[in-house]
């Protein structure tokens, strides 16, 4: 069996840029997509989030596809750029598309009327099929919807399908829109910060939501030997609470451990961690405990939520791509908003840009339903 899957190409489409390079340059330059918005279609009062300007209220994207929803157009723009930059042909026989999203076309509920009659249009399978047909993928796309670990789980699934030789190339694309449905829900949980979020900081008071689409193309073809690869990946469940994370961090630690095992790595070989870091009290505390349990407390760690917000189904993919870019460029992106640690376990975290030579890194995510995911990236 093959081990791991090479990263062939990628794209991030967010308010911080429409390519991976643009996004990376924006954030290392201290820019961010997060700002105050006034949009009564999302919230009656002003709010802080990272929103894509295009495509709302009938104003179309540069290359809108006729008959596609805004969500589907976001995914399409991202997939298109990744395919082009990687020179990957979606029509190849052993190529699969995986779509990751938490809520897809849920904005269609907002128009009211007979909601059940809209089920087919709202269904994630319908969106995935439209996008697969647009690019002429030869197989039915796979759809993953597993809360905030969807993006990482999609990458892990892609890696498994490549390792088992079911496919040679897998295009993993994720996106979510921020709509009144999602915004009102997080607001009802009192999980939203009214300022730019501050992951792991003592003064953190919640998350910012973000819109984005991202695509990562993975391959088992040896011609990509030398590219950074996904070397391990694992998922574990807290079995504790459906909306609150584990109090001990034990299960995220189990996911980290299992991902390291799969990659054949010891914790001492990890040189960088891209955390989930949502800036809620409980998530960040749980993650700090898990990182400590894994004996990774001295390893540089960051959270990107202050740049992109929490992009839900895209988050794991966006953050994996930025991790890959950090490894290529030897730069550890700062955690904006972090000043003084507000978690009970020590972490090596900084609000300054740092340089580092990184051979192996770890990316984690956790979500509602008690799910935790971890992947390792290796040179």
């Amino acid at each position, binding site marked *: *069996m093959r081990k791991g899957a090479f990263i062939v190409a990628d794209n991030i489409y967010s308010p911080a840029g429409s390519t991976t390079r643009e996004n990376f340059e924006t954030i290392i330059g201290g820019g961010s997509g997060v700002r105050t918005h006034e949009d009564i279609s999302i919230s009656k009062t002003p709010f802080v989030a990272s929103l894509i300007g295009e495509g709302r209220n009938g104003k179309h994207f540069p290359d809108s596809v006729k008959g596609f929803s805004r969500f589907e157009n976001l995914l399409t723009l991202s997939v298109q750029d990744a395919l082009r930059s990687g020179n990957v042909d979606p029509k190849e026989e052993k190529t699969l598309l995986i779509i990751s999203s938490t809520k897809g076309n849920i904005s269609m*509920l907002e128009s009211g009327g007979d909601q059940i009659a809209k089920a087919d249009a709202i269904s994630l399978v319908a969106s995935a099929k439209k996008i697969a047909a647009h690019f002429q993928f030869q197989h039915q796309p796979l759809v993953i919807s*597993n809360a905030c670990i969807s993006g990482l789980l999609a990458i892990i699934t892609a890696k*498994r399908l490549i390792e088992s030789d079911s496919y040679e190339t897998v295009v993993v694309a994720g996106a979510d829109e921020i709509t009144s449905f999602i915004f009102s829900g997080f607001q009802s949980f009192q999980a939203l910060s009214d300022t730019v979020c501050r992951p792991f900081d003592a003064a953190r008071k919640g998350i910012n939501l973000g819109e984005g689409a991202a695509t990562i193309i993975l391959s088992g073809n040896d011609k990509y030997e030398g590219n950074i690869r996904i070397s391990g990946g694992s*998922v574990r*469940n807290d*079995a504790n609470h459906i909306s609150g994370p584990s109090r001990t961090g034990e*299960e995220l630690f189990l996911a980290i451990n299992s991902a390291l095992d799969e990659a054949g790595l010891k914790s001492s070989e990890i040189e960088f961690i891209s955390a989930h870091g949502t800036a809620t009290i409980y998530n960040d505390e749980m993650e700090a405990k898990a990182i400590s349990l894994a004996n990774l407390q001295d390893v540089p760690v960051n959270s990107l939520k202050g740049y992109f917000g929490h992009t839900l189904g895209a988050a794991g993919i966006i953050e994996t791509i930025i991790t890959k870019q950090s490894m290529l460029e030897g730069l550890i992106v700062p955690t904006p908003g972090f000043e003084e640690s507000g978690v009970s376990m020590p972490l090596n975290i900084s609000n300054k840009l740092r340089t580092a030579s990184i051979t192996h890194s770890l990316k984690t995510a956790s979500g509602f339903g008690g*799910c935790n995911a971890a992947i390792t990236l290796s040179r």
Partner: protein
Amino acid sequence: MRNGELYFKAGSEDPSSILAEIYEHLLPAYPKFYKMDQLSKLGWLATEILLGPEFRYKNYPADKVGIVLSNANASLDTDIRYYDTVKDIASPALFVYTLPNIVAGEISIRHRLKGENAFFIFDHFNAGFIQQYVSGLLNNDNLQACICGWVETLGKQLDAALFLVEKTPNAGAVGFTPAIMNQIYQ
């Protein structure tokens, strides 16, 4: 139906009454059941019936039992109910169920299962994919056992078919193949 035999026949026709009747029949003394949405109730009850009382004596390590589920409409049934509350006061108790994988979380809590989770969306029960994915997890020793299958509810419809797959074959177990899974599902 459990293992090919009729397990219980509900008298009601309305989905929430059917689920309540099955719960009353099982009487598991699990008050959290009443807080769950319809999808979680369905998956949770199906797992109770699937595992029966025998499962817990098998003493699998918690992180070696996984849950791999699928359906067509994700959590739309609850999404619609939740969005109805947004006009007045958005309900956090409903919002948490607006993700399909919450049912896996509820099953995990009940049976202390900490292994691999995944929720896939298909327009029909895709036995071939589920069999391939779960077999992979068992073959590489990521899991020793897995609950997998289909859990769907929307409006008046309730449709669940769950399978317990174990790496070490059990007396009386049937083979884990797409053909057998489809036969059981139908």
